């Protein structure tokens, strides 16, 4: 799997994403600066990592979402190539139009930084084939704007088409309530694009890949991507 990791000024999770990708695939990902117009030839997967691109100025992900490289990412996704956006990366994908909806300020206005359980809604996608359906995984969250909002039609469509990837849950798999760390509609922690080849998620699977960090539940996502059918663009 050939992965390209995008870099915008203000991101800070690119190293974590690259480590997780290399651990799963054995191949070092290529770091791509935002001003580039093209992705490296043969890129299977584009990862937009987390951080604070452009200091979250204007709106989270708004400026990065309109960078040069995003045109190439859009073309890559249109060809069926895989795209993963984590945290600020999810915000960037929403702002760029690759995913619907928007991530608003957390409901209680607090920056939430904690371990977080998620329910894997389906395991027949390139991102989750190494998990089981409805599996509860422990990863972590660290964000101030993760409150997923979209109009009722969009939410109905996402739900109807099975495009919710993960929901916030507790240890026992109970959805919602206290487990919803930011107020997201329907406890949505991550969503797929229409063709299931773009995933945006607020939590950080790339930080739970080493027992030293408190768990390895995040590995499954990167291993899934390695085992996904090739979609080189």
């Amino acid at each position, binding site marked *: 799997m050939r992965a390209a990791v995008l870099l915008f000024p203000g991101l800070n999770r690119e190293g974590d994403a690259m480590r997780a990708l290399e651990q799963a695939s054995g191949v070092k990902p290529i770091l791509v600066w935002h001003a580039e117009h093209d992705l490296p030839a043969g890129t299977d997967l584009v990862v937009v990592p987390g951080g604070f691109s452009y200091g979250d100025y*204007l*709106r989270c992900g*708004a*400026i990065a979402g*309109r960078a040069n490289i995003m045109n190439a990412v859009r073309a890559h996704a249109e060809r069926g190539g895989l795209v993963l956006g984590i945290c600020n990366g999810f915000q960037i994908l929403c*702002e760029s139009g690759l995913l*619907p*909806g*928007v991530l*608003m*300020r*957390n*409901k*209680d*206005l607090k920056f939430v930084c904690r371990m977080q359980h998620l329910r894997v809604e389906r395991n027949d996608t390139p991102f989750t084939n190494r998990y089981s359906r409805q599996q509860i995984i422990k990863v972590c969250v660290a964000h101030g704007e993760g*409150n997923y*909002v*979209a*109009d009722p039609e969009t939410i109905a469509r996402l739900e109807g088409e099975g495009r919710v990837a993960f929901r916030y849950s507790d240890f026992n798999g109970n959805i919602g309530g206290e487990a919803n760390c930011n*107020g997201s509609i329907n406890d949505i922690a991550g969503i797929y694009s229409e063709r299931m080849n773009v995933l945006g998620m607020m939590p950080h699977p790339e930080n739970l890949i080493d027992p030293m960090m408190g768990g390895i539940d995040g590995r499954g996502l990167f291993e899934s991507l390695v085992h996904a059918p090739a979609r080189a663009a």
Partner: protein
Amino acid sequence: MKARVTVTLKTGVLDPQGKAIEGALRSLAIEGVDSVRQGKVFDLELSLEDPARAQAVLKDACEKLLANTVVENYRIEIL
């Protein structure tokens, strides 16, 4: 030519910042404020002569960047 663009949250979109400001006003004993919604103001200097052209350019700017029309409305004023 100068212009002002005001971006506000659409009705029904939760505005936790507005809510917090509303609470702060209440704690200052400022009376008569029923609710607060927070927005953004952009003051722009334009090198355009024609107000209609300026409107069109700013509409484009709002749609493409200044507002996220999923949750925000915008208003353009040519000053």
